[in-house]
């Protein structure tokens, strides 16, 4: 059993396990699954006197979004250091450079801005929204892929 856990998991374990997070969160807390809302929460926590309407909300009542993100960090640590034979790298070596930092910075800006503008990411739209059969989330997911394809096929060949 332990030996099996230590290996990379196949898609038919990984996918259903990710999908199960939705009913787990709904049934234990009534909250809808989502991750990128934590960005907004952290922004609001760091700017308590902001005049920006988007950040003027009671972040304490949705602090669970940040707690969820903290859990993901802890889970990432447990999985890679305790449940893997040796830690696995997840970014290519070429990213450990000035160029790599610039690419990650640009990408991160797009992720932060884009997920807030679209009101969700692969968690809130692709997992939660599609599971709830929402047209908005289907369109959002298609747009995520259009953006990913443009970056992969048209822009990255020029950059990486």
């Amino acid at each position, binding site marked *: 059993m332990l030996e099996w*856990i230590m290996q990379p998991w196949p898609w038919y374990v990984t996918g259903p396990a990710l999908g199960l997070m939705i009913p787990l969160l709904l049934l234990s807390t009534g909250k809808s699954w989502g991750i990128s809302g934590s960005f907004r929460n952290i922004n609001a926590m760091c700017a308590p006197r902001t005049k920006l309407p988007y950040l003027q909300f009671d972040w304490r009542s949705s602090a669970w979004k940040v707690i969820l993100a903290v859990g993901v960090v802890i889970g990432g640590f447990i999985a890679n250091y305790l449940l893997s034979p040796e830690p696995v790298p997840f970014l290519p070596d070429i990213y450990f450079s000035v160029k790599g930092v610039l690419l990650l910075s640009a990408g991160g800006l797009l992720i932060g801005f884009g997920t807030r503008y679209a009101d969700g990411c692969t968690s809130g739209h692709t*997992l939660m929204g599609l599971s*709830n059969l929402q047209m908005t989330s289907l369109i959002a997911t298609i747009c995520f892929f259009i953006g*990913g394809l443009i970056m992969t096929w048209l822009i990255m060949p020029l*950059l990486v």
Partner: protein
Amino acid sequence: MDTVQDTPRETSQVALNLRVLVIGTMFGIVLVKGQVISWFNIQEMFRFQSAYMYLVIGSAVVVGAISVFLIKRTHARTIDRQEIEIKSKKLNKGTVIGGIMFGLGWAVTGACPGPIYAQIGSGTWLAFVTLGAALVGSYLYALAQPRLPS
């Protein structure tokens, strides 16, 4: 008729945060063990070189959709007997423009928001750059939001 057993009970902050923390931890473990946080897997997905990520996302949505269907069909309540309400999100220009922006960032960083956090936990320290930039990006959205087409 409401019996005592049907009366919703308030979820304390501590209980809420503990439950969420445990679920987040499980999610992080699955993301890493399934290598969903790997830049290489995301690139193979967008290059159509591997079916792996499509099978992961597809089976996740199938399990999620069946779960949501059953929760609605049975009018299931939370473990504190509160009613479960799933809000729908509005379709607007941001869904498309923001969605494409996010997709651009997803492909180049190899991480969507969940995996950014899981990468950090996994010791991929460069992911702090991605997270920091994402927080700046989110703040820039807050600045621009009053003037953006919605």
